[in-house]
């Protein structure tokens, strides 16, 4: 197990190292600093946007589910609510 982990780590380092040889980083070869920065900015942007969308959707869904759980399932007449006491839903 320990050898397997070390093997995986070695492969990952090798892959990162190989990228340098292969010029797999498109912005690394650019002489323009502005271009390099644009690559970094857009990489961050394209990573953050989907994560924010998913996070926002889950947060909104949770909030909506809680609000629906707190709401009454059916319309209740006022006299029934009154009879149910001070701890009833809707009070």
């Amino acid at each position, binding site marked *: 197990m320990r050898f397997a982990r070390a093997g995986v780590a070695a492969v990952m380092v090798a892959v990162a190292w190989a990228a340098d040889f292969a010029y797999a980083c498109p912005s690394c070869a650019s002489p*323009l600093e502005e271009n390099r920065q*644009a690559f970094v900015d*857009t990489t961050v942007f394209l990573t953050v946007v989907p994560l924010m969308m998913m996070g926002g959707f889950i947060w909104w*869904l949770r909030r909506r*589910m809680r609000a*629906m759980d707190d709401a009454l399932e059916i319309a209740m007449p006022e006299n029934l609510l009154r009879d149910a006491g001070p701890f009833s839903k809707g009070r």
Partner: protein
Amino acid sequence: MPDDALGRAHGVPARREPVLPNGVLGMLLFVATEIMFFSGLISAFVIGKSNAIGGWPPPGQPRLPVEETALNTAALLASGVALYFANRAFKVGAPTTKRLLLLSIALGGFFVLFQGAEWVALIGEGLTLTSGQLGGFFYLLVGTHAIHVVAGFIILLYTYRKLSHDDLDRFTFWPAQIFWYFVVGVWPILYWQVYL
């Protein structure tokens, strides 16, 4: 089957409203893919712009009408605001819903027509899809958005027609609003990136 004090039949689970109607979920997924699509286009534009030799906008190319488009941007944003108030009026069944929805549609239509006129002027000045990087990116980004505005305009017309026939429910109105808010929301980003 006897009912309890709340009016529910014993042994039968009470039906409740879905947390998210199917139409809304479908539209949210669609808009999420659209956001990623526009994010990709904007990223390509930002990288293309940063890679331009001789600065941006490229020399010898027509200048984009910044001030006129600012007015058009305001019209589109106002359309989104009108739709928001139309929804509020719709929720309480107010008669102003129709007028506000119509105002939103009219402002959307104004945006499309104004942009069409702007394109005619720019093509006349020599900015075409093949005239250079600026023209290519401009028509790709702004044109893609324009297609979405036209689609949103048709959807809003459809909701207006349903409202006129007293046939509009919130499960139809809600997805239409999501799409229009997306169209309105993405435009200021495009304006900032492409025009300014």
